[in-house]
């Protein structure tokens, strides 16, 4: 299985920044209470709030917002925060396109029928190159369709 994923820095920053702030304030209060408010090491101690805050933010991000797309020649699945959102076979789809979402981010759209029901793959939240991945998926879908056994032919045999 090939895996596509990417850390979305803006989302990670939004999760982490409150914790960075809270930890920095806590360190400041602890130092002030301990009578170390004017120590030259204060800045070094305060800087510890960044790795701790981002560490907590990363844990929450991985649990809630990290998007992963895993796929092989037969099937694919979309996971968000470790939960499986979609699991399906390529052969169930007939058409693929690059679709820009409302923020103009390029995602992949898989159609079961032309202009019919579809499934979106959020590749903009992974490290996939939209055009290359679309071409790859299109090849997969076309290959699956051409190698699928035709029931009438099988019956005739």
């Amino acid at each position, binding site marked *: 299985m090939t895996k596509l994923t990417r850390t979305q820095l803006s989302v990670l920053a939004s999760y982490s920044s409150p914790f960075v702030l809270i930890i920095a304030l806590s360190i400041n209060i602890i130092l002030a209470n301990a009578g170390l408010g004017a120590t030259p090491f204060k800045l070094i101690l305060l800087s510890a709030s960044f790795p701790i805050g981002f560490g907590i933010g990363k844990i929450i991000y991985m649990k809630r917002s990290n998007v992963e797309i895993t796929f092989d020649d037969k099937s694919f699945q979309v996971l968000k925060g470790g939960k499986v959102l979609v699991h399906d076979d390529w052969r169930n789809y007939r*058409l*693929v*396109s*690059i*679709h*820009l979402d*409302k*923020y*103009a981010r*390029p995602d992949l*759209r898989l159609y079961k029928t032309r202009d019919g029901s579809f499934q979106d793959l959020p590749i903009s939240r992974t490290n996939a190159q*939209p*055009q290359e991945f*679309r*071409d790859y998926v*299109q090849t997969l879908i076309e290959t699956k369709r051409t190698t699928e056994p035709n029931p009438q032919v099988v019956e005739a045999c």
Partner: protein
Amino acid sequence: MAKNSKTSETLQLLERGLIAGRAKWVADLSEFFKNWRIRETTFDLYARGGTRNRGFLMSRFFAWSALPDYNVALFCICSDSVHPSLTSERLRKAIDDVIYHLQQAELKWAWLIVFVNSPVPAWAVSLVSRYDRQELGLSLASTTTGQVVVSANQIGRSIRKQLGLNKLMVKVAIDKVN
């Protein structure tokens, strides 16, 4: 094979620009298909969208209040993928198929761009430059010389500037020389 040819690479560059929002001043193209078939013609690229931009607050309000809500499309063909070769008959057939799709999908207007891997033939220059149907903008672009020919209507003229085809072909021609 056509996949690695100069015309296909140029098409890929054009598509990349459109995905990045190059056409946003005239159309908000939101979906891009490869090898889209309409009747007997297979288009190497088919992009569809509308004239009303997306956006967040102000731009969305402006689009909703000031811009018309038309469906539009862009079609591209690489001469490499036309077998045995691009002829006047085949180009007319492609135009007819785009017009057919315009009516079927209730599009307001469409662009058709053909990339050729040779200097643009005289018959094609004549056909395209005299084309004046309002709802279809036509263009022929040579990946060897960088020459761009557009139809004599408003939609056709917008291909040069709004879609950035002129700039793209200059870049492609310079890359070829280098």
